[in-house]
């Protein structure tokens, strides 16, 4: 019986470790995607290092998309659809948000970049997606994103699409911790 007990405890340990491994896949996946940028998830923190040169010889087209989630009543769209940029130069681009309802709603934008591998090269210095945004009913606001394209962007990318999906997070919003700004 002792023989069985030792082996069973070892096997149970494997079971426990694998159960933990299933959950460990969640942060592992995020880390892996952060390093490789393969799922088009851009960094959620502001870029601190700026490019030291502006590559005026090269033009990259940035396309802007915006989509409110199906449960989000805001009207949400980019100010312009398309912008041609030089890698290294800093640009500011505005998104327009309007809350057509009569109540205050808090929104969180989640960015996604296509093609996914280009996500690593789109650096945001300031973005409305870094914080939650609150908007009183009937109001509208401009939400800016300040960004530059890394001059190291591989040559095969000539167009990058930046998409924001806007979610209603009013239910989980906490006024004290959120650093949201009202309309500018």
């Amino acid at each position, binding site marked *: 019986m002792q*023989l*069985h007990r030792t*082996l*069973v405890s070892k*096997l*149970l340990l*494997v*079971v*426990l470790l*694998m*159960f933990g*491994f*299933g*959950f460990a*896949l*969640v942060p592992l*996946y995020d880390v892996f*995607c952060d390093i*490789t940028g*393969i*799922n*088009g*998830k851009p960094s*959620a923190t502001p870029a601190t290092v700026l490019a030291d040169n502006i590559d005026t010889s090269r033009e990259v087209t940035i396309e802007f998309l915006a989509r409110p*989630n199906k449960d989000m009543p805001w009207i949400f769209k980019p100010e312009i659809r398309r912008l041609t940029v030089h890698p290294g130069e800093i640009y500011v681009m505005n998104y327009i948000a309007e809350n057509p309802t009569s109540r205050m709603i808090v929104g*969180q934008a*989640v960015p996604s970049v296509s093609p*996914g*591998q280009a996500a690593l090269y789109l650096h945001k210095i300031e973005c409305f997606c870094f914080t939650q945004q609150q908007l009183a009913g009937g109001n509208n606001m401009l939400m800016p994103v300040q960004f530059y394209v890394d001059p190291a962007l591989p040559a095969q990318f000539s167009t990058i699409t930046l998409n924001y*999906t806007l*979610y209603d*997070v009013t239910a*989980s919003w906490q006024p004290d911790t959120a650093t949201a700004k009202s309309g500018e």
Partner: protein
Amino acid sequence: MSAITTEHDDHAHDHKPSGIKRWLFTTNHKDIGSMYLIFALVMFFLGGSMAMVIRLELFQPGMQFVEPHFFNQMTTVHGLIMVFGAVMPAFTGLANWMIPMMIGAPDMALPRMNNWSFWILPFAFLILLLSLFMPGGGPSFGWTFYAPLSTTYSGDSTALFVFSVHIMGISSIMGAINVIVTIWNLRAPGMTWMKMPLFVWTWFITAFLLIMVMPVLAGAVTMVLTDKYFGTSFFDAAGGGDPVLFQHIFWFFGHPEVYIMILPAFGIISAIIPTFARKPLFGYASMVYATASIAILSFLVWAHHMFTTGMPVFATLFFMYCTMLIAVPTGVKVFNWVATMWRGAMTFEVPMMFALAFIVLFTIGGFSGLMLAITPADFQYHDTYFVVAHFHYVLVTGAVFSIIAAAYYWLPKWTGYMYDERLGQLHFWCSLISVNMLFFPMHFVGLAGMPRRIPDYALQFADFNAFISIGGFLFGLSQLIFVWVLVKCARGGVPATAQVWEGAEGLEWEVPSPAPYHTFETPPVIK
């Protein structure tokens, strides 16, 4: 299929309670094995009847018999029942019955746990089946329960689905631990690792796969549960999660899972072919190594289910080549089976017929798997009936045929009587013809672009689908012959000898038929 005591000795534990208590409280590996097998058969018919509903609806284009939502519940629950309720318990039942006898052990190592791992299973499926009667219906997101289908868009039956999968998982893990401990600790003196029958070897490796991936499945369903009911965002982009992550976690379980359903089949075929070819198995050691290689590779290929989610080229190439690499050890196995038959004195009893059909048809399923492994081609095949054809060839004419072959092969050992060979042959030929009518044309409609998991389809697929449905009904009806054979054999017939088959070798053929309630209480001598 119940074990009947032919010996009676004085040990107190030999006493069997009568009636239902015998089955509720039994710790005997043969009783538990029989219960697993009967349970799997019942589930096979239940899951099969759902397949009949699916084929009935698809008999003609347009909506005839069921609502799309109910159709989706049928495809989902059909898949869940066949995978977790039919194939896996059938293999566990065979393991319970045969492994102790094959290695000269008196019973499984952990008999009480064995009782538990069986008896929680009916409750798991009761929960799953009852969820079909809930308002809003049962699970309808496919057996793969992809997020957000299972989180955002599912009904409240999802909670029941999650708990039933948890119970199934616990049952499989306990069964697997039991198999490992039995094989590790209870082999008779002289039964060295490389003398073990291949069925024991393949199950040993399968059990390791089970304890490594079933906990990951438990994690995945738990995340679905908390995402749906407790506000977590594992798979919800709004909260920083990612629905693609679900697919990675699911298929990290899911791909080894498909080998869990086929490795024991390899063991069964490796037992049957030498018996009826009257030659020892060709390349025993290479069979063991091939099985282990397949098991290891199975952890490195999960993303080939997700080529269309958008992966970097390097990752698709890695998963494509690893997937194709699996064809090598699998090819070794097929080669060895064919080499075993080469110049053998073959006879073609029913187990051999099913084993031969397995080799040919499983190989067809393997080839379509290779086609699906080619990333650029997969973009066309993905989520079409070609995929349905592929996995039904490996699971029905693969796993299920091997289980049927095993049932015919060991039935005389279990009941003490020979089955009706004429009826068995009828069952085989009906199954063989109908199963190919059922699944082969699915390749064609799939290549032509018919998507899977739909209750209606474009008109150009009508003729093929009518033909497929007829094949489906015939295959379903053919399995009734199987039940007839089983019942007839359990009730009586020509008494079987201890060896049963002329060419059979191994410890299980040295005990009388039917196998006594207790076998190998003193370890046998291994030559």
